[in-house]
């Protein structure tokens, strides 16, 4: 098991480095100069040149990239924000917790609701509940979360005045953003759980369990859910990362000062280095989540666990199953 974890962690390093290089490169070829952002209206070609020299932007691409990478690796330093004039890492660290909590809560809510509705829909297949929930899931998976956020705000904050229009100062402020973030993933988890459970429910061992006289609720809880949840469990980890970035627009709409609002500000003030830092942090978190998911998957799925516990059979099975788990990701 340790060997598997070490291998996965080592595989992560080139990906994360690649992501940093990619984002840096895209930004490097940006036409507009950060000097204009700093100088504002006072920008003249001479002043721009001076500021660019100060920032070291006149140096060759590889020197800048090397320095940027080195600062991230050694000091977790993402450079200094042009518009706030403080280190990006400080800004990101101060805004990150809100986004993380929002994202995590969103995932917890969507998993709990989506999975339980999915199980119910599958167990009561062809019932009104099944049709209704699948229909609603199809519809809601097409509703853009930013529009849903606006509509919820319009109805519940503006018209009915049940919830505040912006901010997270009271517990009421959390409700609408969380609903907007969760509806899409709920639909997704519902559909995934439903199809996965339906696949399991027709297996022979389920029939065996019923045939030996096990009460239906025990069949479902012990045999069906346990096996049906494996494919669903593998995507939960990925969703933590995705929902964290999915909050960008929600944060903008509800004016929640998290990472998303920081990015929104960075986009609109041309603060590229801050945007770059935010994107890289998100990419690192998502890669980390993918890693945790893969490792958890290895723990949950006995087929993967077996090959690492029983080292004698390791070689034969290794390539096949690991590829399988990566295919799941794609």
């Amino acid at each position, binding site marked *: 098991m340790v060997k598997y974890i070490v291998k996965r962690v080592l595989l992560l390093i080139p990906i994360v480095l690649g992501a940093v290089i990619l984002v840096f490169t895209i930004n490097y070829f940006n036409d507009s100069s950060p000097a204009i952002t700093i100088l504002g209206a006072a920008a003249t070609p001479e002043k721009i040149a001076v500021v660019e020299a100060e920032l070291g932007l006149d140096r060759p691409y590889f020197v800048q990239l090397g320095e940027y990478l080195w600062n991230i690796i050694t000091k977790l330093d993402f450079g200094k924000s042009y518009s706030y004039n403080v280190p990006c890492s400080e800004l990101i660290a101060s805004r990150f917790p809100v986004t993380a909590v929002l994202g995590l809560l969103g995932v917890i809510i969507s998993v709990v609701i989506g999975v339980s509705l999915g199980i119910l829909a599958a167990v009561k297949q062809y019932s009104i509940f099944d049709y209704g929930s699948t229909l609603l899931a199809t519809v809601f998976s097409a509703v853009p979360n930013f529009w849903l956020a*606006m*509509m919820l705000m319009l109805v519940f904050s503006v018209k009915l005045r049940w919830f505040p229009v912006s901010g997270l100062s009271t517990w009421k402020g959390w409700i609408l953003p969380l609903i907007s973030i969760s509806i899409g993933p709920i639909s997704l988890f519902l559909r995934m759980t439903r199809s996965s459970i339906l696949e399991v429910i027709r297996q022979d061992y389920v029939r065996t369990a019923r045939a030996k006289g096990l009460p239906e609720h025990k069949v479902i809880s012990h045999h069906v859910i346990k096996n049906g949840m494996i494919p669903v469990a593998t995507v939960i980890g990925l969703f933590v990362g995705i929902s964290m970035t999915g909050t960008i627009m929600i944060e903008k709409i509800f004016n929640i000062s998290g990472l998303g609002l920081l990015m*929104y500000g960075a986009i609109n003030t041309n603060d590229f280095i801050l945007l770059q830092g935010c994107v890289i942090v998100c990419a690192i978190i998502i890669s980390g989540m993918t890693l945790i998911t893969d490792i958890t998957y290895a723990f949950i799925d006995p087929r993967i666990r077996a090959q690492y516990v029983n080292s004698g059979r390791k070689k034969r099975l290794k390539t096949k199953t690991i590829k399988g788990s990566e295919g799941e990701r794609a």
Partner: protein
Amino acid sequence: MIRKAVSSQPKVRKRRGRFAETAHRLSKNIPAMCALCFVVLLIMSAVFAPYLAPYDYAKQDLTQKFVTPNLAHPLGTDNFGRDILSRLLFGGRISLLVSVMAVAMSVGGALIVGSAVGYFGGALDNIVMRILDVFMAIPGMLLTIVFSVALGTTLFDTALAIALTSIPALARQLRASTLLIRDQEYIEAAKSFGSSHWRIIWKHVIPNTLAPVIVQTSMRLGEAILAISGMSILGLGVQPPTPEWGNILASGQEYIRTYWPLITFPGILIGLAMLSFNLLGDGLRDAMDPRLKK
């Protein structure tokens, strides 16, 4: 008696081509057909927008600001007194155009990259796949933002930003299907006839990977519309005063406390467009390859 028995036998099914067979199966899928109708309606309304729109989409009338829907303005007017229905009709042109451009570029790019990489394999495959892995480590939305910031906000730039983001996943999928085809006998036969590699890719590999591509095209069109409007919410993408569903929606956000039509109608259109493209994609998948049906 005998005649009756003969006539009651099921008719011999007419042989159909692959396209007709797919169309026939698709026509039996009610949700997909509804979706197709809506998509056709959207395209028609975009094409004929100048004839359908009751007003000039850019004409401002400051005496008619924030008029709630009535007979003269079926969907109301916006903050400059412009007719929302006309703006949505013209906005549909931009939204659809940009998403079609984005999907065309991403499918084209992915076809070239995916089939070439899958066909030739070896070191090229390894290098390209590792680069695509890096692209996929960055969440799609963020990558589109970064590209969009770097490229600019013209229609083409927006489409390109979305296309560049969606190429990796699609290319990866096409590579997988190319790998399955690469070792088939007919490819070997083509090689033995002396066909060049690119001819084999063009004539044999790509046509055989086309089914998933068509399904993906439909799905991606919906996603592209969503991405474009998402960009507009963040102040990127197509810039006002050019009407586009996303930026009409974004402009309404400022007036959410006082005026509802400006955020309601564009959102409904975006949602319906996405739903239709998704349902159509699902229907096409089932129709083209019944084995994939869930």
